[in-house]
């Protein structure tokens, strides 16, 4: 019985330690993370439009979404990109999002 409990705890611990939802960020935190950072800058002038695209990870087990610059630009009809930022959030390694913000014309 004790062995079964130990095995169960080990499996849960392994899952929690190795199966965390991770996301790109300039700084990391284990409890809560909500960070915005630069991704790219171009030589184009003007930014009156903003487009976003997002990808999500749950428990590090399921990750979905299209967080590409192309998808973000398309969402706002941007044809000339001025700069690109991203925002990453992570809650306890259980739920993580990566959002791309494209600014341009």
């Amino acid at each position, binding site marked *: 019985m004790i062995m079964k409990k130990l095995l169960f705890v080990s499996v849960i611990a392994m899952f929690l330690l190795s199966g965390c939802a991770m996301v790109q960020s300039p700084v990391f935190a284990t409890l809560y993370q909500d960070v915005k950072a630069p991704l790219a800058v171009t030589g184009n002038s003007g930014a*009156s439009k*903003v*487009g*976003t695209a997002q990808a999500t990870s749950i428990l590090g087990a399921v990750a979905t979404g299209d967080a590409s610059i192309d998808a973000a630009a398309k969402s*706002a*009809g941007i044809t000339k990109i001025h700069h690109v930022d991203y925002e990453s959030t992570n809650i306890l390694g259980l739920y993580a999002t990566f959002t791309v913000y494209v600014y341009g014309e």
Partner: protein
Amino acid sequence: MIYFIKPFDGFQGVKGNEEFIYDLTYQLGEDSLTMNYTYYSPLAMVADSLVFNFSNKSHSYKTHRLFIEKDKKDWRHRYTAQVPLEVIKEFYAVENAPVILVLGGDEKMSYDISKHKWRKFSDIMRQILNMISLNE
């Protein structure tokens, strides 16, 4: 200064589960905002106007297609419209939940929001709009 209000998905189709997601972009000093929005329908629909119904008034704006593409069983429509800043301020000032319509030819998509969600979201939006006014 450019303000971007993240996508909001609180409005739902009157049948229940159809999503209407929109975001707002405002450039300081302009008298209108850009509203980019996404809606889904089983059949592709070409929209021509976006309508806000609130306080027994109807505000209609010309809308332009960004793209229409197949998304699993439905069609995903992405459109854009310019909405006057003053109308947006009035929209978020109303207590009773408003209705948003997308019209195209004889077709109509209608979206509403629960009172609870509206109270919470409109309060945040009023604070954002107030902050924008303070920075004008």
